[in-house]
């Protein structure tokens, strides 16, 4: 039956986002917080708050037992993991199942199968989903050398269990392979307790395109359009857009259909994202991986379709099914999301914890700001540095870019340095306006010039 009371096992802006969705659905929200987050905005907005552990994430937001116990002792019938933290831990989904708590996300089985890159790639092959040339899981450096020779250098070594760039290495030539393999293997082992790697052809000017999918858990799945997340720095997304621009209709249909097939075949319940690597030179797309959770950038899909992804997650978990059919999903205009982090672009994006003395989000009809920030909020050093997501909508990409820049200019923040100014410079760059970017453009082409130009300003604490 519909959910009655949901424990939110997360923090920051996504906690506030899920609380809002619960409010909209008439569901009570209980927020599990660490001691450091007692005074957070989410804690102020939730119907109830429960302190589960100390500031250290390992003993709070990353502790499966405490999180499930929190749901039990507060009488919740469901648990929403948000993104990051435990959101893709099969163990959490399983513990919830055992405790009779509805997990707002896929079943342990669906999560296991989608979460492991090798398994997902194998499934993709079965379903005739185009995958980037490369190997399945490889056993040794030797094997890697063989595959690399086949597909041709440069190649990418990737952790099978991994994500976020950990256990990933770019190998330009055979000479680099040995050390790269050792590094990637070690990193993967340390980060995921699973050192398995696979090899992929490296696409020089690749674009990161992904499809938002909602699965009904019974083999059905609809897409909520695609997104472009090409603007990244060290595999961390900076700017996301919906829809992905400049794709041929054939390519669009291919990835949208592929994503639905994949999620359907997994009997996947809830929100998932299928990532593709798009090679503009060839006009081809290759499946990369499935993210078995809500994503940071889901708002851009919501802005262009009107579909509330988080509310749909709650409906699916409550057994109510999707409120929309594929035919209802219509893309209107263009939306852009900018991540505003408490980081210093001039000090290699070092986090800038501290107290926000001034915070005023721009007020605009086509502008949405997802944040847990407020004047007086102190950004703790324990967690990630995402301060806010600024999302703007326009009739087309050009208008959306203009509105996003205008909104960024009207953001008022003081007390901590942020990436807002840096993001504005990115969005003003001709290559971004023209869409002539690739996944390494920020690092290789933008930042070098930008850093030189802003060297003078170092230490001025630009907000």
């Amino acid at each position, binding site marked *: 039956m519909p959910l009655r009371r949901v424990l939110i096992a997360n923090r920051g802006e996504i906690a506030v986002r899920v609380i809002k969705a619960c409010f909209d659905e008439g569901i009570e929200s209980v927020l599990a917080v660490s001691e450091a987050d007692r005074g957070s905005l989410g804690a102020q907005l939730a119907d109830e708050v429960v*302190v589960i552990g100390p500031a250290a994430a390992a*003993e709070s937001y990353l502790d499966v037992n405490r999180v499930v*116990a929190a749901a039990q002792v507060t009488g919740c019938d469901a648990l929403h993991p948000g993104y990051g933290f435990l959101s893709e831990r099969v163990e959490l989904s399983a513990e919830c199942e055992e405790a009779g708590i509805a997990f707002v996300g896929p079943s342990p089985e669906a999560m296991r199968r989608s979460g492991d890159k090798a398994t997902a790639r194998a499934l993709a092959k079965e379903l005739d989903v185009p995958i980037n040339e490369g190997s399945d899981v490889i056993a040794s450096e030797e094997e890697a050398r063989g595959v690399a020779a086949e597909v041709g250098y440069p190649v990418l070594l990737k952790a099978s269990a991994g994500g976020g760039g950990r256990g990933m290495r770019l190998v330009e030539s055979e000479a680099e392979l040995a050390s790269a393999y050792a590094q990637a293997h070690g990193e993967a082992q340390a980060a995921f307790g699973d050192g398995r790697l696979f090899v992929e052809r490296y696409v020089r000017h690749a674009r990161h395109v992904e499809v938002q999918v909602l699965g009904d858990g019974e083999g059905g799945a609809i897409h909520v359009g695609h997104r472009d997340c090409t603007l990244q720095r060290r595999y961390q997304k900076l700017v996301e857009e919906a829809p992905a621009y400049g794709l041929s209709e054939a390519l669009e249909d291919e990835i949208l259909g592929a994503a639905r097939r994949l999620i359907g075949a997994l009997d996947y319940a809830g929100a998932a994202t299928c990532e593709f690597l798009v090679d503009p030179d060839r006009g081809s797309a290759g499946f990369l991986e499935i993210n078995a959770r809500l994503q940071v950038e889901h708002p851009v899909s919501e802005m262009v379709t009107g579909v509330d992804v988080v509310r749909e997650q709650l409906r699916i978990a409550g057994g109510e099914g999707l409120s929309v059919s594929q035919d209802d999903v219509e893309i209107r205009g263009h939306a852009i999301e900018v991540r505003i982090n408490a980081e210093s672009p001039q000090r290699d994006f070092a986090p800038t914890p501290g107290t926000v003395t001034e915070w005023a989000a721009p007020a605009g009809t086509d502008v949405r700001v997802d944040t847990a920030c407020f004047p007086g909020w102190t950004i703790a050093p324990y967690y990630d540095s995402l301060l806010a997501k600024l999302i703007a909508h326009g009739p087309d990409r050009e208008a959306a870019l203009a509105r996003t820049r205008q909104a960024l200019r009207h953001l008022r923040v003081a007390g901590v340095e942020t990436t807002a100014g840096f993001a504005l410079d990115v969005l003003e760059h001709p290559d971004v306006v023209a869409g002539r970017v690739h996944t390494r453009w920020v690092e290789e082409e933008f930042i070098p010039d930008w850093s030189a130009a802003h060297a003078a300003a170092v230490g001025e604490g630009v907000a």
Partner: protein
Amino acid sequence: MEMTPETIKALLDAFDRSDWREMVVTVGEDRLHVSRDPLSESSLQAHSAPPAAPAAGSSDSAAAVPVAAGDPPPAPAAAPPAGEPVTGTKIESPSVGLFWRAPAPGAAPFVEVGQSVKAGETVAIVEVMKLMNHVASPVDGVVTAILVENGAAVEFGQTIVVVDPEG
């Protein structure tokens, strides 16, 4: 007029954000004195400033201060009867979970109010998904309060038992 929690909080926030070594605020009779250098127990008792002040900086989970002050509201459990502040060492829950006074249903409680305990002796269990966390007293003393009912839910950091070292 005396210091309100708001004004104290505002001041301590400002102090926390700063690199100041020391801050002194005089409010009629009251005096708030915070310092990055250790303040002696006596120097604290000397003032009528709430003990919350020194605690605010530290995360010491067993500071020897009156329970009544600087304590997060122990919801959903009951606070000690107002007016008669229970003094002693606060023992806080190490996690969210369920509070048990005895090792097993029907078994005798670990401790009762008025009973003496040794440092390291278990005073209660906090259960987290079948994991039984034994909570031990950090000091020798006498149990002056048990603030949670058997089987009730507790939060991390919530005071569950108070032991008076002087007792």
